[in-house]
């Protein structure tokens, strides 16, 4: 079994490497190189040449790639092209907290509630509660994030009268009440967005187990419903559920982009959009890698969880 896990991790690393090549090549296709952009149109040939040498831009492409990758792994991301002489690390350290708070709070609040709702829906398939939840999630799953966000704004700001439609300023000097109004909209929206998917997938995962012959057998053995669900079904559904959770957390990584922009929230996602608009390819490379690596790791966890939950692998003959 360790071999399977190691192969999976190895495959994950290889994928990340492949992704890094795609991102590196993609951003390299941008017109103009770093030296040109930094020195501007008025630069002389000599000064350009000197800077290129310094940045290693005269090296063959593959060497540039390895140099970049090597630096990236060590945490040396380079200097931003668009924002003067600020290092990328500086830009990121200003912002990463915001994104981290929103996504981890979303995970902590949204995931348990959604999984719970999904399991209950699967326990009573066809009930009014189940139908309502199913219809709700069918609707929300297909709706764009900014639609959900607008609904949340209408509900929270205009109906309940709390929070701000736009998140302004930093979180440093705010008290609890202010912090809540600060975060409530982005977090609530993201929770709703992943809840739709999570409820659906959890319900499907549990229902799949609930329809298996050994559940029917447990019922025919006169086992109480609670024990059938808690011991017989959940023990088998736990792998698929963790899988579903990891997939949806990976989804938060992308969902957060639209949400941050919508609420004008200063996080990593707005930073990368800014990078694209200013064609700051060093910034895009770095952030792209961070987002993709997180995504790949979460997907790998999803994969591993379904392997680990298989008793045939955990208890070999």
């Amino acid at each position, binding site marked *: 079994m360790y071999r399977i896990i190691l192969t999976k991790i190895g495959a994950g690393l290889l*994928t*990340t490497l*492949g*992704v890094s090549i*795609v*991102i590196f090549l*993609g*951003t390299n*296709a*941008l017109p103009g190189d770093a030296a040109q952009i930094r020195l501007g149109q008025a630069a002389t040939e000599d000064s350009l040449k000197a800077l290129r040498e310094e940045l290693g831009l005269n090296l063959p492409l593959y060497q540039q790639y390895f140099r970049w990758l090597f630096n990236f792994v060590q945490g040396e991301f380079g200097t931003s092209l668009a924002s003067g002489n600020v290092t990328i690390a500086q830009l990121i350290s200003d912002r990463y907290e915001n994104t981290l708070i929103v996504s981890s709070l979303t995970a902590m609040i949204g995931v348990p509630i959604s999984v719970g709702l999904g399991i209950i829906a699967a326990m009573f398939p066809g009930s009014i509660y189940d139908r309502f939840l199913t*219809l709700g999630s*069918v*609707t929300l*799953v*297909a*709706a*764009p*994030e*900014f*639609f959900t966000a*607008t609904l949340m*704004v*209408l509900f929270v700001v*205009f109906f309940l009268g709390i929070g701000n*439609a*736009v998140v302004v300023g930093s979180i440093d000097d705010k008290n609890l009440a202010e912090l809540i109004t600060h975060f409530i909209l982005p977090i609530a929206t993201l929770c709703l967005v992943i809840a739709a998917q999570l409820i659906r997938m959890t319900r*499907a995962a549990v229902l799949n187990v609930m329809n298996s012959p050994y559940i029917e057998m447990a019922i025919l053995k006169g086992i109480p419903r609670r024990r059938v669900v808690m011991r017989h079904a959940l023990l088998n559904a736990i792998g698929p559920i963790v899988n579903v959770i990891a997939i949806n957390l*990976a989804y938060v*990584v*992308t969902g957060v*982009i*639209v949400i941050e*922009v*919508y609420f*004008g929230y200063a996080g990593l996602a707005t930073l*990368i*959009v800014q*990078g*694209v*608009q200013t*064609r700051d*390819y060093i910034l*895009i490379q770095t952030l*792209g890698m961070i*987002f*993709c690596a997180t*995504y*790949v790791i979460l*997907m790998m966890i999803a994969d591993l969880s379904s392997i680990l939950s298989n008793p045939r692998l955990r208890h070999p003959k």
Partner: protein
Amino acid sequence: MISDKNNEDKHFVAPYSKEVSFDELQDAPPSGKFRLSITGKLGVIVVAFWLFVAVFGQFLAPYEENDLPFPDDYSEFQKPRAGAWLGTDVDDRDILSRIMYGAGRTIGISLAGVLIAYVIGVTLGIGSSIAGSRIDQILTQFFNIMLAIPTIMFGLVVVAAVGSSIPVLIITAGAIFSPVVFRLSRALGMEIMVMDFVEAAKVRGEGYRWIIFKEIWPNAAMPLISDFGLRFIYVILFVSSLSFLGLGVQPPLADWGSMVRENLGALQYGESVIPILAPAIAIASLTVAINLIVDDVSAHAGGKLSGRL
């Protein structure tokens, strides 16, 4: 006879006629014919409505997409009133007209994108499932890496590299969604390839052409078509999200995603929310309607196809 039937100690033989042949019983009787549920029907109506708007919207719109309905009374975010039934946007343009123009663009780009994704994905996916190990491995590895990049992130990098225009959007959407289609059609192809009837065709000596078009394709077509709807939703969401981020359809062209972005200011100033809500509802109503149909169809087909992925 009745007494016999209930007397357990007597040998009981049911009455029979010589003609009854006791043939093999048919398999489980087919369940009733497929009918759309109420939500499914609603979905069909909404999708039909938007397709109509997409094609004819620009001819029926009261104004051109960048016309000002009230040139003399210029103020942004006007409330709905006669002449502008949904009010005006950040530049005082008629929201209704822009939505009607945007319909064609949003739906057209997405449809073209998903079609490209299907052509690439299905051709390579089915091809890969037949071609055998070497080519299959290379293609699968390549598409796995593509799948490991979140779609929006992929879009961002492409737009950063080559800039944004409608053809770029279409091709990008096609390229980004082809790996998922590849994976699905490859899985389907593999599943059908190991069926006995394909092997029977091989034993008969049939060539690849026959096996692909007569044995595999008829069996893969239905699942692929029902997945198409789901994929279409994701492409619409992708294109609108890019536009929303300012990296998709560029102003002054109207598109549902970019309309939300342009009018985001309405929230800040606490103005009417219609300029944001109207295009957002347009997208949501279309994608939700498609999903309602997909849900109906796949519930009937027994099991969601996306569950295979």
